[in-house]
């Protein structure tokens, strides 16, 4: 952590978006923005990379499909083939119509759960995890933009106040 960071508080999403655009126009790096609700377009304006979590979900779904096929092939075809109603289980592909529902369900099961677990781990969400938002108001109605100061404190202060920040908290780290 840098020696000094500024937390700029905003109480409106539109004002925040304007501020983010102005700060980015000055080629300053925004460390973080804490929001009480999703602000559409904020990730792009801040310069965040698009998330790849949907891609992981697709891969997990493929994994689920493979698991279901391997499992049912082993259980129904290889390990103990049965002759049910004159329809013997000797070939997976010929018996497949009966296996479609479970193939579908396991695909969804894997895609949904593993994606959510990935999300929780990547965003550091789990029971007993301490919240890291710097101010309790960020889950209510305030937005905080965090910017590091590199010998430009006054300049930054003026800029942020000019963008409509309702409050600035200049945090000096003397460790």
């Amino acid at each position, binding site marked *: 952590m840098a020696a000094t960071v500024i937390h700029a*508080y905003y109480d409106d999403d*539109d004002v925040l*978006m304007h501020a983010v655009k102005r700060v980015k126009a000055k080629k300053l790096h925004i460390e*973080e923005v*804490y*929001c*009480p*609700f*999703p*602000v*559409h*377009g904020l*990730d792009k304006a*801040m310069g*965040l990379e698009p*998330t790849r*979590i*949907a891609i992981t*979900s697709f891969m997990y779904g493929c994994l689920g499909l493979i698991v279901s096929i391997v499992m049912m092939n082993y*259980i129904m075809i290889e*390990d*103990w083939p*049965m002759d*049910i109603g004159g329809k013997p*289980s000797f070939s997976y592909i010929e*018996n497949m119509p*009966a296996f479609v529902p*479970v193939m579908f*369900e396991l695909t*969804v*099961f894997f895609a*949904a*759960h593993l*994606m*959510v677990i990935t*999300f*929780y781990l990547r*965003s550091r*969400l*789990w*029971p007993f*995890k301490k*919240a*890291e*938002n710097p101010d*309790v108001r960020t*889950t*209510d109605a305030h937005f905080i933009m965090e910017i590091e100061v590199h010998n430009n404190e006054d300049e930054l202060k003026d800029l*942020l*106040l*000019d963008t*409509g920040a*309702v*409050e600035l*908290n*200049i*945090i*000096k*780290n*003397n460790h």
Partner: protein
Amino acid sequence: MASHYEAPIRKPLVIGDKGYHDVSVDIAAPVEGRANKMWWIVFSIALAAFLWGVGSIIYTVSTGIGTWGLNKTVNWAWDITNFVWWVGIGHAGTLISAVLLLFRQKWRMAINRSAEAMTIFSVIQAGLFPIIHMGRPWLAYWVVPIPNQFGSLWVNFNSPLLWDVFAISTYLSVSLVFWWTGLLPDFGMIRDRAVKPFQKKIYGLLSFGWTGRAKDWQRFEEVSLVLAGLATPLVLSVHTIVSFDFATSVIPGWHTTIFPPYFVAGAIFSGFAMVQTLLIIMRKVSHLEDYITVQHIELMNIVIMITGSIVGCAYITELFIAWYSGVEYEQYAFLNRATGPYWWAYLLMMSCNVVSPQVMWFKKIRTSIVISFIISIVVNVGMWFERFVIIVTSLHRDYLPSSWTMFSPTFVDIGIFIGTIGFFFVLFLLYSRTFPVIAQAEVKSILKSSGDRYKKLRDAGQPLYTIKKNGIVRETILGESDSKNALPEAGNLSLLSTLGSFDAGTQTVDDLKKVKGIGPLMEKTLNGLGIYSFLQLSKLTKKEYDLLDSITEAFPGRAQRDDWAGQAKLLLNNKN
């Protein structure tokens, strides 16, 4: 801003002059407040019903399925009727949260949380029935394909009953994570508002440490969208597979290819009716009329009317196909349904499900809260009878006229059914007191496009926001003192220096008696000390409490135990 534009013809979804903070206050109010008498009465009734159900289940398991009214002809009756009924009710939750999300319907945001809760609670009730029917519920894990000690004895993947196991468990667990993921930011909001340490701890635990970084929100939105995309075919598959339990059999009356779409439409129909029942009560009890508006009720009524009509089409198609097929067994099954000894159940089903929702064509009726409530109950009754009719009337006159019989439930059948209703309401009532019942973060995100305040501003041609350039600046020094904000340390020990003095010119006197533990006498004492406002009280800390005790000499420790500062903070928030 263009992104918040919404056509003026659209009615506001959040009524009243509400900003972002007001939404937090309103949604947190039922959680932070105390349960009223009405809640306790309803909860006690639900709990009693639940306990009756538990008793009936224990009796069934310890004695055997013979305690039910089943006989060798009607060997499947209330158990599977109740199972299908509860699973069907569950469907609306996922429909509202997933399908309406994909269609970008903003009105879902006021009702999705409760609808999803209803899904989970009703699927739990549904799951109970097959497990009880197993006779030895402790062996329920045998439905899972695990290597076992019986040699190569596997579950049968050709059986619709096993497909059901996979469908229902996937559905329940995916709905649960979908619900919980959406809850995280809202639990975070309640955590950050909590003043009592215990509440803070519990909601901190439930919120998984939700922080709300821009990246978290980006992922959150993507995850919600993908889950909605996955849940939409999932919800269709679940009731399709439930209908396979019947459709893949060779019983006339069950062996029909129309079952999957017919069951899915019926499920959405009954689920919306149950959402309607629950939310009409909840909006009143929890004072959420500004969020769950008549507009929401009307839209749900339209869904009920449409799905009810689809169900009606399916009923008629069934009759037509039975006649058109030329199969006399099929024809008899349907003739017997409508005109046989169970004609009354068929009539009840037809009138509740097909006729009653048709009144919703009239705007006066579908915007009437009382009639909506009555129709929602009627539909739920009708949908229970639909399943009863399908199941019992197809079985009770089987292949041998000598074994033709009727079904009559025993008190155990009734007890288990009533018990699941009780269990459902116990869960829902607990939920409504402890969970944020409206997805407040999502409501805030549509407030500018669909909130009454901003719609009025837009209509008046006024800007939705102004950039004020008079922000305050403060400094925090980390590493030197533990205090987060470098407030000036009180040099002397006088109370008012830390609490701040009261300025009668600019501030108003608060009614301090609103704080629990302050009576008229104590209020006078406090006024005597120069304390008039909640703002001053909210700044009380351990030191001030001790000082206050030493001055007033009344009930030492009382002020701190009652958490006057926390209460004052709340009152202050509600005032602003």
